[in-house]
């Protein structure tokens, strides 16, 4: 066990002696506590308040076949200790209910409701237990229970009948937007309550793109899961696929060879580059600075072409594989990569100068869409949005994966939490990305690019993680028999961050919503799966 985790685990086992039934050390930084359901509020509060733990994932698993129980998992990240403590509690099928944590840990809100919808475990004491993952017109089905077939035929969709909350008062009216939006973006519904221009309340309705992804993971061979993971959120194809591979590799007790880890790092940074550049351009467009966007799109295209030259696909698809990566790079490819980082740097700097020289752009971005550090911490906001709101955190630094332990880089953190800072985090990170890539290319280790995987042991659990460009991505898996998974829980940072958008937009005017939304740029598909 990592030395940092020891005092925490012994504190919890001491304090909750009556309810903690066992401690399992799966990996040095991944400790499981088996406890009774009664222990949940206490253990979670202790971790959250006293040990500065963050609830990074909360999910259920139908283990009725193996142990006649549902299991709830509460995954806490202990950033200072560089480890994870996972609380596992059983829920008997006869009493399919669990107590909500949302009042104490607001970050639990959506994830708890998702469990209620997908597993049929009833939530008690939740401030807002309405449906979340399944829309209101869905029949009473629980898709992630094992007795629900993947291809079940449901009656056709009759229309969303979601009960939005009423906002009343003189001059208050509602502006519904979506699910089909005006731009080329993903579907979701936003209901603004406004009094004049300022937004009083924003209700967000998502899960329009729910595709049964987690269920599908349980029904395909493990290796095919890599390809499915690439389709969780297209703009994070490589990050999701790598997080999935990481989980499987940890379950199989193998590590990707050093060269593969280096290539993974470069691909993760390329993904960060093209998305950050595109977002910077898009933020500029949303405040009518179209020229900056044209330049940004031009640079993004260059990254996509480089991706294709290195991996055969513009979105890096097909590159990830279990145990490493699929394609090694030859000298000419590495040369092109080197040349590219050299050329991109001045080009990018000049784009940033262009934007920063425009005072009207700055005027629109500064103090727009503020997310305070306090709210960010309560909601568990991660990634770019977290760092722009004072949360000094990055899995690349705090939980080094791939080859990040071999690179030196800074994690930009701002406290103001406005659109300008979310853009500034991206600008800073582009510079750091190029630096990381240069360092990794410099010391590119020789050797193989994939470790062959032994057959997976049944019933093994593992947490895989990657800091994607948007924020931390987790894949938790439990192996089934043979070449199958019994569960794959996917946690995209978007799920965690969406509620923050509702907070950031308060008091802003509706016409600023696009730019505020873009500054978060959350994935609908990653949320809805």
């Amino acid at each position: 066990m990592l030395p940092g985790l020891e005092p925490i685990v012994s504190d919890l086992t001491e304090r909750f002696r009556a309810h903690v039934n066992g401690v399992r050390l799966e990996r040095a930084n991944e400790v499981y506590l088996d406890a009774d359901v009664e222990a949940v509020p206490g253990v979670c509060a202790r971790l959250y308040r006293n040990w500065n733990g963050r609830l990074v994932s909360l999910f259920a698993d139908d283990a009725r076949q193996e142990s006649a129980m549902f299991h709830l998992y509460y995954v806490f990240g202990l950033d200072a200790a560089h480890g994870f403590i996972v609380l596992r509690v059983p829920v008997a099928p006869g009493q399919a209910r669990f107590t909500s944590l949302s009042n104490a840990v607001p970050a639990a809100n959506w994830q708890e409701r998702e469990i209620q919808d997908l597993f049929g475990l009833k939530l008690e004491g939740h401030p807002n237990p309405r449906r979340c993952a399944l829309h209101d017109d869905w029949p009473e089905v629980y898709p992630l229970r094992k007795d629900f077939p993947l291809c079940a035929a449901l009656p056709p969709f009759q229309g969303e009948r979601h009960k939005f909350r009423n906002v009343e008062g003189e001059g208050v009216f509602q502006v519904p937007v979506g699910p089909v939006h005006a731009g080329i973006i993903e579907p979701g519904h936003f209901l603004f309550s406004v009094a004049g221009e300022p937004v009083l309340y924003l209700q967000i309705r998502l899960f329009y793109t729910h595709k049964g992804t987690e269920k599908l993971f349980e029904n395909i061979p493990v290796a095919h899961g890599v390809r499915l993971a690439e389709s969780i959120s297209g703009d994070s194809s490589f990050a999701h696929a790598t997080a999935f591979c990481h989980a499987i590799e940890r379950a199989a007790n193998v590590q990707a060879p050093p060269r593969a880890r280096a290539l993974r790092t470069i691909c993760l940074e390329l993904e960060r580059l093209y998305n950050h550049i595109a977002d910077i351009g898009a933020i500029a467009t949303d405040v009518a600075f179209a020229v900056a966007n044209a330049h940004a799109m031009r640079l993004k295209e260059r990254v996509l072409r480089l991706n294709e030259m290195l991996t055969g696909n513009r979105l890096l698809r097909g590159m990830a594989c279990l145990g490493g990566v699929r394609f090694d790079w030859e000298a000419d490819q590495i040369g092109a990569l080197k040349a590219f980082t050299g050329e991109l740097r001045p080009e990018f700097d000049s784009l940033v100068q262009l934007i920063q020289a425009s005072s009207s752009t700055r005027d629109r971005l500064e103090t727009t869409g503020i997310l305070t550090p306090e709210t960010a911490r309560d909601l568990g906001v991660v990634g770019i949005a977290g760092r722009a709101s004072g949360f000094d955190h990055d899995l690349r630094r705090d939980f080094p994966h791939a080859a990040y332990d071999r690179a030196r880089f800074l994690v930009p953190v701002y406290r103001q939490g406005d659109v300008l800072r979310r853009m500034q985090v991206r600008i800073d990170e582009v510079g750091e990305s190029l630096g990381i890539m240069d360092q990794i290319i410099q010391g590119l280790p020789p050797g193989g690019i994939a470790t062959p995987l032994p057959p997976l042991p049944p019933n093994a659990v593992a947490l895989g993680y990657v800091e994607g460009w948007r924020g931390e991505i987790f894949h938790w898996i439990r192996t089934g028999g043979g070449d199958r998974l019994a569960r794959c829980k996917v946690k995209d940072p978007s799920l965690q961050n969406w509620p923050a958008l509702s907070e950031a937009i308060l008091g802003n005017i509706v016409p600023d919503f696009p730019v505020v939304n873009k500054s978060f740029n959350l994935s609908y598909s990653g949320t809805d799966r």
Partner: protein
Amino acid sequence: MFDIIRKSLKTGIVTAKYPQSPAEVSSQARGRPEIDFAHWKDARPAVAACATGALAFTDEGRERTVTFDLAKCTFCGLCAESAAAIRMTRQYELAARRREDLKMVARYELAAEGAQSKLLSLSGPNGCASEPIDSPHGCDPRRRGPSPGYAIGASANEEARTASLESVGTQLNERVSQVLGRSLHIREVDAGSCNGCEVEIVGLNSPVYDLERFGIHFVASPRHADMLLVTGPVSRNMELALRKTYNAMPEPRLVVAVGACGCSGGIFGRNYATLGGVDKVLPVDIYIPGCPPNPCALLQGILLAIGKLYSRA
């Protein structure tokens, strides 16, 4: 202001010449796979490697029926890694008017070890390799670059393709102006995609692909649109919104299904939450395969669709 102009002048024109000349595709790019049926001994490893079900086979006695569905293929190249008779080409201009045009069915008689299997019938899209492939190309990084006879624009078939595309390009403005009064308006709908297709569709508006030079615009409302560009396997939750969007469009209207998911449901197929492709909900005029299709592939599909609109009007 002057800085902006100076930077624009310094940058110059970056717009790709496509479709007048072939798109710049890296030598590493993976397009559609090509199958040499006669030399394909054991179909099982490749079919097992395919995560999308694009490849499938059934054996009846000594007769094997293989289907290859381009609409499902994501060009991952895993089949080519496990079968010497399959290789990845760089072809990306794959849009088709009918779903059947993307499906290939080969029946052949399995031969004894060492001998060549006899191809009994081959139906489906043209341009499939029926001539033997001398050595595996696959995704082996040591065998890079265009291999003879398969590079873009190298075979007669490819040349004809490029030539026809070029003429499509030059006729384009004429047609658009005849039918639509100089412009085509597109409404994009994401019916449950992973947003990969959106990453590329957004690229069409970039100065590199600059869709507007053809008089083609993306519009905010379906009421202004002539064409619906749909991505995603159509999630159960998006079906109604998709229908409503379509119903709001004036006639004549076109529907283009984008990407493996839009064309067939892709890796998601049909399950409790997805319908398995745009044509399960709307009449589709053009299918654009790819995962995601690159901007030139999208452009080719859109140009093909305009031809269709022309003939219909």
